[in-house]
C-alpha cells in the first residue's frame, strides 16, 4: 500500500459525506446503498464514522460528471478513467467524482460495479494512494469481484490502519464472524507455495492460485500476477485443475463438477459444462489435476492418487482406469494437486513439491519446488 506524501489524513474520525447528484444508470436507492456500503468497507476496520448530509458542504462530496466537469481533470469518455478522488484536505479534498460516461451497475459483472469503484475512490478520499498489490482494492486497475462476498484485503487494511488505527469496536481476539479472514496475495517465491492448477496457453504458461494466476512468458523471467476475474469475471477463484488441449486449441478449467473452456484469452460460450461431458464417470465429482499427454495423445485426469485416461479423438475413457498414479509414475509421492506437460517432461505436483518425469519413459528425473516455473 502507499499513502500520500506526509501521510495526509483527516484530523477527525467523524466525517460527513453528501451525494450531490445521481447517475441515471441506477435507481437512486441503489446508488445510496452502494455509497453507504463502500464507506462501511473502511469504517469496519478503522475508527472512522460517516454521517450523511443532504445539503451544504460535506468532507466527501460525491458527484457524477462527464468530460470537463470543473476540477481541471477532465474525464475521457467510456472506459479508460472511471473515476477519481482527492486526498484529505479542505475544499475539494476528499471529494470523489465518477465518470458519467461509464455504465455503472450494482448487481452484475457487466459494466462497472459502483460499489467497487466507490470503495476504491473512498480509499483515496481517506488518504491512501495506489497499491502495487494486484489483489488490493487500491490497485489502480478495475477488476470485478462479487460485491456480496467482498472482503477488504489485508494490504488495504494495513494501509488504512497505518493512518487511523484499528476499529475500536472490534477486539482483535474476536474478529467479525460475518467476515472471513482478509484475502492475501500469494508470494511466488514462497518455498511452501501450493498451486491450484497449471497449464500452457499457446506458448505461455498460467499458474493458478486462489483469486490469481501468474502469466509466465517464455521470453521473460518476470511472471505477471493478475486477478482471474480481471480477465474472466465468470471463471471461479480457487480452481481445481487446468490443462491445454493442443488438439482442440482450448484451455479447460475445472472446479467441482464444472468445466469452463478458453480459446486464447476468450471464454468459450456454452460453458460451464459438467465433468461427465469430458468423459469422466458420473461418480467423479471433482478432479485435482489434468494434462494432455502428447506422447499418448490422451488427456490424463487426476483424482488425488488415481488417474483416468481419456481419448479425445474417440471421445471415450480408456478401459482399465482409474489407475494408481504411482504405478505408472514410479516415485510419485502424495496426491496429485496439479499437472503439466512441458518440453518433453511431465510435471506432477503434490503440495509444495513438483515431480519431473520424462514424458516418454515416465522415469522420475527430479523433485523440485512447486514454484519452479515462477522465476524465483
Amino acid at each position, binding site marked *: 500500500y*502507499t499513502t500520500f506524501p506526509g501521510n495526509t489524513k483527516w484530523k477527525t474520525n467523524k466525517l460527513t459525506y453528501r451525494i450531490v447528484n445521481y447517475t441515471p444508470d441506477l435507481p437512486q436507492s441503489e446508488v445510496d446503498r452502494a455509497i453507504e456500503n463502500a464507506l462501511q468497507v473502511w469504517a469496519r476496520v478503522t475508527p472512522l464514522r460517516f454521517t450523511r448530509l443532504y445539503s451544504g458542504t460535506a468532507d466527501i462530496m460525491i458527484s457524477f460528471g462527464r468530460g470537463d466537469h470543473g476540477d481541471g481533470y477532465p474525464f475521457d469518455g467510456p472506459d479508460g*478513467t472511471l473515476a477519481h478522488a482527492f486526498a484529505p484536505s479542505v475544499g475539494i479534498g476528499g471529494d470523489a467524482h465518477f465518470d458519467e460516461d461509464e455504465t455503472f451497475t450494482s448487481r452484475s459483472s457487466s459494466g462497472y460495479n459502483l460499489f467497487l469503484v466507490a470503495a476504491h475512490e473512498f480509499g*483515496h478520499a481517506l488518504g491512501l*494512494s495506489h497499491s502495487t498489490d494486484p489483489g488490493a482494492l487500491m490497485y489502480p*486497475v*478495475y477488476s470485478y469481484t462479487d460485491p456480496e462476498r467482498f472482503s477488504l484485503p489485508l494490504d488495504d487494511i494495513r494501509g488504512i490502519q497505518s493512518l487511523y488505527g484499528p476499529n475500536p469496536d472490534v477486539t482483535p481476539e474476536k474478529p467479525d464472524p460475518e467476515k472471513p479472514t482478509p484475502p492475501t496475495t500469494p508470494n511466488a517465491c514462497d518455498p511452501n507455495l501450493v498451486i491450484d492448477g497449471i497449464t500452457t496457453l499457446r506458448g505461455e504458461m498460467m499458474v493458478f492460485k486462489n483469486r490469481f494466476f501468474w502469466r509466465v*512468458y517464455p521470453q521473460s523471467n518476470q511472471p*505477471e500476477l493478475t486477478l482471474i476475474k480481471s480477465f474472466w469475471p465468470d471463471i471461479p477463484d480457487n480452481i481445481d485443475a487446468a490443462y491445454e488441449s493442443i488438439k482442440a486449441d482450448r484451455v479447460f478449467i475445472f472446479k467441482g463438477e464444472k468445466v469452463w473452456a478458453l480459446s486464447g484469452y476468450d471464454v468459450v460460450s456454452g460453458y460451464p459444462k459438467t465433468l461427465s461431458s469430458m468423459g469422466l464417470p458420473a461418480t467423479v465429482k471433482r478432479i485435482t489435476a489434468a494434462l494432455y499427454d502428447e506422447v499418448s495423445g490422451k488427456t490424463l485426469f487426476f483424482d488425488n492418487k488415481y488417474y483416468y485416461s481419456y481419448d479425445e479423438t474417440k471421445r471415450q475413457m480408456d478401459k482399465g482406469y482409474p489407475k494408481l498414479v504411482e504405478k505408472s509414475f514410479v516415485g510419485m509421492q502424495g496426491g496429485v494437486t496439479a499437472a503439466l506437460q512441458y518440453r518433453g517432461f511431465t510435471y506432477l505436483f503434490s503440495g509444495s513439491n513438483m515431480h519431473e518425469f520424462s514424458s516418454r519413459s515416465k522415469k522420475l528425473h527430479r523433485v523440485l519446488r512447486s514454484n519452479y516455473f515462477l522465476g524465483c
Partner: protein
Amino acid sequence: AHCAPLLPPLSSTQDQKVVETYLMKFYDLKNETDSDPHRGVHQMTLKLKEMQQFFGLEVTGVMDSNTLEVMKKPRCGVPDLAE
C-alpha cells in the same frame, strides 16, 4: 553524433498516443518531447520503467504488448505516483 536509446516503432500512432497520454496522466511525463527530442525520449523510457515497475511487468523501458495491454485497462484516474 548522439547515441540515445530509441523506442521501437509502435504499431500505430494511436498506440503511441495512448502511451503518451497514459504516462502524462499517471506518471507525470512532462511534455518536453518537442523542445529536446533526445531528452524527451529518455524521459519516456524512464517513465515507462516506472510504470512497468509499478505493475510488476518486465522492466525494460521499451513498449511491448503486455505493457500496452495494461495501459488499455479501465482504471482509476488518480496518478500512480503518490506525489
